[in-house]
């Protein structure tokens, strides 16, 4: 890093770290998360894990252990392969396989089609309900308890091709990075604007540009803001990770943690996208800040840019399906591309090549926006009035 850039970045970081407002904003977020966690923890105590059997739900059971009586419904004669085939063909919605060694292994298997992103599926407990219903006609209550307690139903999500499906597990990390980027926009936007406008608002831009070039001043400010944003993001992520680790055996958090699928390439690309998107956003805010001379003017100009950035969230449903022309445009339009790419990556509706092209578009846009901010700050350093389009022209 150039020494001027470093000096500017150091000054900007240290002065922000000294401000109580920075720490208030930083620590408020984990407190909010803690509050939300507490509320959700309380509310999950009442989650109904014993769903009722819908009349339309088609169920099949292979009972190799002979648990069910001869007149029990849903029992089929076919083996496990046959049952799984029925699920693939759509003949049944839920298929349960009770192996011959069920009494020892205490494990039954549950197969259903899952291409979506549902976190919890308690349909596996339908087997328990059916077993109790069936047993109650034949044995006393103590036997029912012995029969239906202490066994595990292994949830096997499959796709229509019969392959194991873990859409949510694959989506968790890209979505987490997407949410982090969204938080970054929410937390840092105002500071990006103010840090650039401040020099003009305080009439210090001429003095400072006699000592340092606009290039190093702007790049230094961007680096500082990214570092500060990172501090705030870490303050957000670390408590979440601690909560997850502490509650890894929780009935709600445990299954999510277990299903996380780590794809090194996808994570690498997601992190890269987060970095270039942050620089692009910082460059955009800095450019807007360099055009105007007051924070008030700046906030009215940055609004449309932020709306364009979060635009894909309004079309979330569209991103879950086969990408149409609107999704394609949002994927390659620099402002909407960061969140569009993160969504498509999460929903698994983008190829690696498409993702890389989108990433490149954002990276090039980030460089262009930073360059525009540098030039604009130099040209508009002495524009202390309201924004006029002529100030955008080469002076």
């Amino acid at each position, binding site marked *: 890093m150039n020494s001027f850039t470093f000096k500017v970045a150091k000054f900007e970081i240290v002065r922000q770290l000294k401000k109580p407002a920075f720490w208030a904003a930083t620590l408020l977020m984990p407190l909010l998360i803690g509050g939300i966690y507490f509320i959700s923890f309380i509310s999950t105590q009442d989650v109904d894990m014993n769903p009722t059997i819908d009349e339309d739900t088609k169920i099949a059971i292979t009972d190799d252990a002979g648990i069910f009586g001869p007149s029990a419904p849903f029992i089929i004669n076919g083996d496990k392969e046959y049952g799984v085939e029925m699920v693939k063909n759509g003949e049944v919605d839920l298929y349960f396989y009770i192996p011959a060694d069920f009494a020892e292994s205490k494990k039954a298997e549950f197969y259903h089609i899952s291409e979506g992103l549902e976190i919890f599926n308690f349909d596996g407990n339908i087997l328990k309900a059916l077993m109790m219903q069936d047993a109650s006609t034949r044995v006393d209550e103590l036997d029912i308890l012995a029969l239906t307690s202490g066994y595990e139903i292994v949830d096997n999500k499959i796709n229509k091709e019969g392959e194991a499906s873990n859409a949510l597990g694959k989506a968790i990390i890209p979505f987490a990075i997407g949410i982090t980027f969204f938080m970054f926009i929410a937390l840092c936007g105002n500071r990006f604007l103010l840090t650039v406008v401040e020099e003009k608002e305080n009439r210090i831009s*001429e*003095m400072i540009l006699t*000592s340092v070039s606009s290039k190093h001043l702007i790049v230094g400010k961007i680096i500082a803001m990214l570092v500060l944003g990172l501090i705030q993001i870490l303050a957000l992520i670390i408590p979440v990770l601690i909560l997850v680790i502490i509650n890894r055996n929780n009935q709600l958090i445990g299954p999510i943690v277990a299903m996380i699928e780590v794809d090194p390439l996808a994570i690498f690309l997601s992190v890269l996208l987060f970095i270039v998107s942050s620089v692009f956003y910082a460059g955009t805010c800095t450019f807007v800040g360099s055009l105007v001379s007051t924070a008030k003017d700046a906030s009215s100009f940055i609004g449309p840019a932020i709306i364009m950035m979060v635009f894909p969230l309004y079309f979330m449903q569209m991103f879950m399906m086969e990408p149409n022309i609107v999704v394609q445009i949002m994927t390659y339009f620099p402002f909407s591309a960061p969140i569009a790419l993160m969504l498509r990556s999460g929903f698994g509706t983008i190829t690696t090549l498409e993702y890389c092209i989108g990433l490149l578009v954002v990276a090039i846009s980030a460089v262009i926006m930073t360059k525009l901010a540098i030039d604009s700050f130099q040209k508009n350093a002495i524009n202390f009035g309201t924004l006029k389009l002529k100030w955008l022209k080469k002076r």
Partner: protein
Amino acid sequence: MKSIVEVKNFQMAFDGKVVIKDLSFEVKKGEVFGLLGANGSGKTTTIRALLGFYKPTGGELLVDGKKYNPEDTNVDVGYLPEERGLYRKESVIDTMVYFGELKGIKEPREWALRYLERVGLLDKVNEKVEKLSGGQQQKVQLGLTIMGSPKLLILDEPTKGFDPMNRRLLIEIIEELHKKGTAVIMITHYMDEVEKLCDRALLLKDGVARAYGTIAEIKKEFGGKSLDQIFVDVYGEENE
């Protein structure tokens, strides 16, 4: 004596309106140079073009033989602009240390403390700038401008709004720097300051040089009149 500033055939136009017409002058190393003229005559525009804030429509403006770039020059420049301020939310010492670091001073904190002691602001070291009075802020601004004893000092209406005490202090500091070999360009409306401090001067009217030379030469050219009277005569021409 070699020139530290050379302005050659400088022209400047905004939206097609010419504000500086073929202006040429030089500032020699170690001299105090007065840039004079009424409001809107082109003084500040010339300085801003010299420091790269404006791109000239024509001609050349050089500092030590090349276009000014703060990071690629052998000449430390201190500039007190007409529009000046400070980081209002920062402490005095943090602001001064930051500028000192940007100017490449080895011990910026020590330099700042010595300066603040001299101007009677040592007790305000950790005070936020916004808590200082207007006069105290001006002293801090001046400190930022002269940090590191620059080879070229450009002061745009430096005594504007100064009380007599601060004005005297500023003049003392300019004289000290001059003795150390600093070249000073001073934009001012106070002709007594020009007569007291400046070796040479340039009088601008509507972007055109109306008088240029040593103070004695200018006076001689206008029949031995005082600078005040010369100023009034030049700007009174239109009314006659």
